[in-house]
């Protein structure tokens, strides 16, 4: 075990105006004494506080998270102990959107309800907390996933790198921890990082370490034995850290190094997210030849005012003809680059498509109005910290995304686990629209399919629902196509203001909404609509919205129930189509071949096990809806530990 090196304090200078270092010394991971005092007063104060704040809290958007710029005195206020986990340590909030657990009546969850919530074919550890996916790669026939993991609890903390392997991105096998916080430079957390595969087969892993003084630095690690297909053991570079916060960069806003790519001068480049003047999100660029010595370039890859700290930056090329994934170093004509950032301030993953200039190492968005952080989202639901990698085996760009719980921390501690990863998605440029990417579950998921049921042109009249008899409805792969027919009796619609999904599935209009009710019970005491809502906008054009409405998803009062969604481009010759993966407490919904995606966390109390059903619904007033569906049952992926000790 290394003793702290006192001279490391000279690598950087803490900036005087940063209250996060000087003003909040008490904001350590376990403010035990303060916790006890605050907890005593909480019982008296929380109801008062909760009453006031409940009235001012917006129902459909999460309350903004306090971040490091919060006044130092906030630490002494009663709800400081409810500050979402992680914020004081310098990462984004890691607990659920409602920061005020205590005053919400906790539902009487039974063990059966909790057990049902565990997913059957999504990656999640056997227990405890997980967040960002890390260093995904393919090596010697195995896909590797690393992930932020707390080995001790179902809440964020003590962060290590968990490790799992799979032959097919679906059937995962748990392996021992890959990296643990055992040096001064990562003793407060082995945080997010990425892998770079060098020609010749060497793998380098760069990751953010939180030091013993809570400074964010970048460290290098590499496999102990490259010929081990399981890459069980990892070595940390003896002279870590290889990067420390440069002058002018806050020491706790400097993290999540990307996969590197080769530039025209033969040097590698990578980017690290940060911010300037607290509100300008940006991506710094470094060049290197050996991954131990780096040169910070002047300027940035890109910056966008008003977006705040950029976490988990991802930067990768896509082919304009949209047929195959590209190596991270690919470039030249026929290629655009995607720049993506996870916004610390809003907990949303945004991306934009643009052009990379490899000579100046800058990137320019195709559409500045939809720049990174102010335009498209990677996923319009509960989704964060996504990271892609190039699968050199099947020539795909694969995207991982972290899906946090939306129930309470208490629930997570009770059930003993929190968070899942999405099904990995293949990413392609959408050549038909030219303005977005397409995401689609990897084809290997089809190996889980059994028992398909087809429905041809089912008619759903306005204001009605149709049950779909498919057997159990908790593990499904649903393909649905919808056509509408305007009724003669349809009234001419008043031109609407922008709908944007927020009013949910009960907001009826002439042309919509219509779609599926997933995780519904027979009596419809609980249901989750996933639907389309075509809308006539004020200028006479038709805009179609794709939404998931959780407001009726559960009778439990202590889970978040958002409405998610967005408009989705629909081309003239296209029918409205959706693909929905249902896997217990996670639903992934894809519209128009993956043009817009929504991930939802659902915690029903009634619509579980054999009581879960699937319906079609049509809440429009003026159209008949005809639906054609193919629905597969999906078996479990039986994710289990790798049989190592035999």
């Amino acid at each position, binding site marked *: 075990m290394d003793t702290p090196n006192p001279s490391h304090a000279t690598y950087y200078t803490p900036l005087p105006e940063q209250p996060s270092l000087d003003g909040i010394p008490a904001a350590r991971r376990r403010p035990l004494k303060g916790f006890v005092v605050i907890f005593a007063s909480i019982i008296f104060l929380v109801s008062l506080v909760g009453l006031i704040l409940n009235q001012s809290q917006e129902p459909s958007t999460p309350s903004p998270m306090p971040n490091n710029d919060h006044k130092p005195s906030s630490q002494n206020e009663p709800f400081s102990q409810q500050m979402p986990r992680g914020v004081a340590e310098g990462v984004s909030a890691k607990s659920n959107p409602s920061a005020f657990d205590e005053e919400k009546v906790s539902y009487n969850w039974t063990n059966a309800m909790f057990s049902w919530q565990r997913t059957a074919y999504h990656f999640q550890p056997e227990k405890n907390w997980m967040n960002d996916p890390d260093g995904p790669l393919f090596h*010697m*026939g*195995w896909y590797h996933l690393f992930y932020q993991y707390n080995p001790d609890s179902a809440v964020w903390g003590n962060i290590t790198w968990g490790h799992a392997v799979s*032959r097919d991105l679906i059937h995962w*096998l748990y392996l021992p921890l890959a990296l643990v916080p055992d040096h001064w430079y990562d003793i407060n957390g082995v945080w997010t990082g990425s892998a770079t595969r060098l020609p010749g087969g060497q793998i380098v892993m760069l990751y953010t370490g939180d030091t013993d003084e809570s400074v964010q630095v970048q460290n290098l690690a590499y496999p102990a034995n490259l010929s081990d*297909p*399981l890459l069980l053991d990892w070595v940390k570079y003896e002279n870590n850290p290889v990067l420390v916060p440069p002058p002018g960069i806050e020491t706790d806003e400097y993290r999540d190094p990307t996969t590197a790519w080769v530039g025209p001068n033969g040097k590698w480049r990578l980017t690290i997210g940060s911010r300037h003047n607290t509100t300008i999100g940006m991506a710094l660029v470094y060049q290197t030849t050996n991954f131990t010595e780096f040169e910070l370039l002047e300027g940035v890859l890109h910056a966008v005012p008003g977006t705040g700290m950029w976490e988990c930056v991802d930067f990768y090329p896509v082919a304009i003809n949209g047929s195959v994934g590209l190596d991270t170093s690919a470039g030249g004509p026929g290629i655009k680059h995607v720049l993506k950032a996870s916004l610390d301030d809003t907990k949303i993953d945004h991306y934009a498509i643009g052009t990379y200039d490899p000579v100046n190492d800058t990137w320019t968005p195709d559409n500045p109005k939809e720049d990174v952080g102010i335009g498209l989202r990677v996923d319009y639901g509960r989704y964060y910290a996504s990271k892609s990698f190039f699968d050199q085996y099947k020539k795909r760009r694969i995207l991982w995304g972290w899906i946090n719980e939306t129930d309470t921390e208490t629930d997570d501690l009770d059930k003993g686990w929190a968070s899942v990863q999405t099904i990995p998605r293949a990413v392609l440029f959408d050549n038909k629209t030219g303005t977005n990417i397409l995401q689609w579950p990897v084809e290997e998921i089809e*190996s889980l399919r059994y028992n398909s049921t087809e429905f041809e042109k089912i008619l759903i009249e306005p204001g009605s629902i149709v049950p779909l008899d498919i057997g159990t409805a908790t593990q499904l792969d649903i393909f649905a196509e919808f056509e509408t027919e305007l009724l003669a009796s349809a009234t001419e619609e008043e031109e609407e203001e922008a709908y944007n999904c927020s009013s949910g599935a009960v907001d009826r209009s002439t042309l919509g909404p219509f779609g599926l009710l997933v995780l519904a019970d027979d009596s419809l005491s609980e249901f989750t609509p996933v639907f389309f809502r075509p809308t006539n906008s004020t200028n006479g054009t038709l805009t179609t919205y794709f939404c998931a409405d959780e407001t009726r998803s559960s009778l439990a009062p202590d889970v978040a129930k958002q409405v998610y969604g967005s408009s989705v481009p629909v081309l003239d010759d296209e029918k409205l189509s959706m693909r929905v993966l249902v896997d217990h407490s996670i639903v992934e919904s894809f519209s128009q071949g993956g043009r817009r995606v929504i991930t939802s966390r659902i915690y029903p109390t009634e619509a579980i096990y054999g009581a879960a059903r699937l319906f079609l619904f049509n809440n429009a007033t003026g159209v008949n809806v005809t639906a054609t569906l193919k629905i597969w049952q999906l078996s479990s992926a039986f994710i289990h530990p*790798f*049989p*190592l*000790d*035999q």
Partner: protein
Amino acid sequence: MQKTLAFLLFLLFLSLHLQLRCEAAAINDDDDDLVENICKKTPFHDLCVATLHPISNSSTSNIKGLATSMANIVLVNATDTLHYIEGLIKQSSDPKQEKALAGCAELYISVVKYELPQAIEALGKGQYGFANYGISDAAKLVDQCEKGFSGTSESPLSDRNKLIHSLSQIAVAIINVLAKG
């Protein structure tokens, strides 16, 4: 006197010869016994014996040797089948069949390049769990290949796929004996 001496020598040679033959036979019998004993514990006894018996010699005189031999036989069969598939693709005139064959080629490439070599290496190192996982996985992929033909014309690979699947199961069973013993 000389005739008696000659006769005694003859008897001596005869007994020596017989003894040697007996010993030789005893060695072969031991090997055969081992093969027989092991193959009884696999799901395809006759196939197991037929495969292992001709190659049983001193290098396969223990269970690990038999397991390794069997795994290698699976690999040899898979490699040969891959070449066979590639040949079929070149000659194919039926697009549906060609698609199924292409799918099989992809699966077999994975088996020949990754699954089986890694399993055999793991076996050599005593990592029986890993070895079994790899060989079982290879069997699953071969199944997937065969399923790719359902609904189209008959599979030209049925016999080969079935054989490799059975040999894989035998290998896994032998490794299980190893792992327990």
